[in-house]
């Protein structure tokens, strides 16, 4: 349904010295993925790895430097799909439920704004807004005329879903949409999201840093690190047969439900390097326990794994003949993961 190829965005930063070299933040660098109709793609990664930038690029809220976006096989821009048409089919929910609603508009007017701009009459838009409020389990008579500051966080975020659904999009981008909510409210809102998806036939792009939530809602998962895709695949393959050491470290950093499991050592130390002048070769090599000379020299390409045709990882250890001492053998029937997930 949505196919993204080689999406790239570099943000210019002020030069360090007058007349010095131009510095850029490589926020998103060559990200490709596709989402099938009715699927949920989860995007996970540390803060600053480019998750939100990717979402904003998709919505064309910021213009990509390069890359191709295809919706239903139609290319965005030029003679293909217009940005306006794309935005009718694709909507976004932001993390901050309060900042994403106009404080001076009653929530039903906020929801009605989208349909109004697409030519619906004021009365029809109002009726639509009330219907949508009902859809997200808010009583239109009670909550419609209220202002955002009169609602709780969970209620506000449900209003944001209603607003996103007002244009009847087919794909909804949820950018950390439940991260700011209390755990109990988060579960409630997640269930509402799943119901909406089933009832309206929606497709989700679910961005989160919460691995457990992503596992719960997603069909496919994409792991990002410093603006690049390090691993992508069906949720079971990525969570149970992770191939990239970064994915393994992320999964190991999850809090366990088992009180007897204690993590003595953090799976990863330090912060990711700066996206201004990232490490050469593999961007993860500065924090990787298995980094070798080849990792600094060459950048690993996303390579399809034997677990499933949709599962791919970008690590020299899973690329046959890459020159890494732990690289898998060509034609190996089963490759053990680089580190145990026990």
């Amino acid at each position, binding site marked *: 349904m949505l196919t993204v190829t080689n999406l790239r965005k570099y943000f210019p930063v002020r030069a360090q010295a007058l007349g010095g070299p131009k510095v850029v933040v490589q926020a998103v660098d060559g990200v490709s993925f596709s989402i099938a109709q009715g699927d949920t793609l989860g995007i996970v990664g540390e803060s600053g790895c480019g998750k939100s930038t990717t979402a*904003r690029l998709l*919505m064309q*809220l910021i213009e990509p430097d390069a890359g191709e976006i295809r919706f239903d096989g139609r290319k965005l821009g030029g003679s293909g799909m217009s*940005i*306006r048409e794309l*935005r*009718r089919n694709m*909507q*976004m929910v*932001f993390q*901050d439920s309060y*900042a*994403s*609603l*106009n*404080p*001076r*508009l009653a929530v039903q007017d*906020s929801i009605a*704004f*989208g349909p109004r*701009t*697409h030519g619906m009459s004021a009365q029809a838009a109002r009726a639509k807004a009330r219907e949508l409020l009902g859809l997200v389990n808010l009583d239109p008579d009670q909550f419609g005329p209220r*202002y955002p*500051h009169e609602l709780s966080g969970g209620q506000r975020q449900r209003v*944001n879903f209603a*607003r996103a659904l*007002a*244009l009847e999009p087919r794909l909804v981008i949820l950018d950390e949409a439940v991260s700011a909510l209390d755990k109990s409210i988060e579960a409630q809102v997640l269930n509402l999201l799943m119901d909406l998806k089933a009832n309206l036939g929606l497709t989700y792009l679910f961005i989160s840093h919460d691995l457990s939530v992503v596992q719960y809602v997603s069909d496919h998962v994409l792991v990002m690190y410093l603006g690049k895709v390090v691993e992508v695949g069906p949720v079971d393959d990525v969570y149970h047969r992770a191939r990239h050491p970064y994915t393994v470290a992320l999964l190991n950093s999850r809090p366990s439900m088992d009180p007897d499991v204690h993590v003595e050592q953090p799976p990863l130390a330090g912060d990711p390097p700066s996206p201004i002048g990232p490490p050469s070769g593999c961007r993860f090599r500065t924090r990787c326990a298995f980094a070798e000379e080849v990792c600094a020299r060459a950048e690993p390409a996303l390579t399809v794994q034997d677990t499933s045709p949709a599962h791919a990882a970008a690590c020299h250890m899973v690329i046959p003949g890459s020159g890494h001492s732990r690289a898998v053998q060509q034609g190996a029937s089963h490759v053990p993961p680089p580190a145990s997930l026990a």
Partner: protein
Amino acid sequence: MDFVEAARASGASTYAIIRVHILGNVLGPILVYATVLVSVSILIAAGLSFIGLGASPPAAEWGLMLNTLRESIFLAPLNSVLPGFMIFVTSMCFNLISDGLRSAMDVRF
């Protein structure tokens, strides 16, 4: 702000976004700031005239009056403080207006 981004994402024109989402939110603070500025200006003007840097004698100015009436403070004390009292009342009025405007313009109050 995210709600402006959301409006952009819904495909609204720049003009519609300014009219619906931006003007309403900035008009309040601008009016409040303007009225506060009026009362501050009155105080500054009076202060400058008082020390002889503002209006010169034939002009009617409270700061100036305050300065000239200074000499008669023992003869007609009420008269000599009257300009000062008026300055106080006027700037207070503008402050109260700005307070009222803020309450009236903000949906949260």
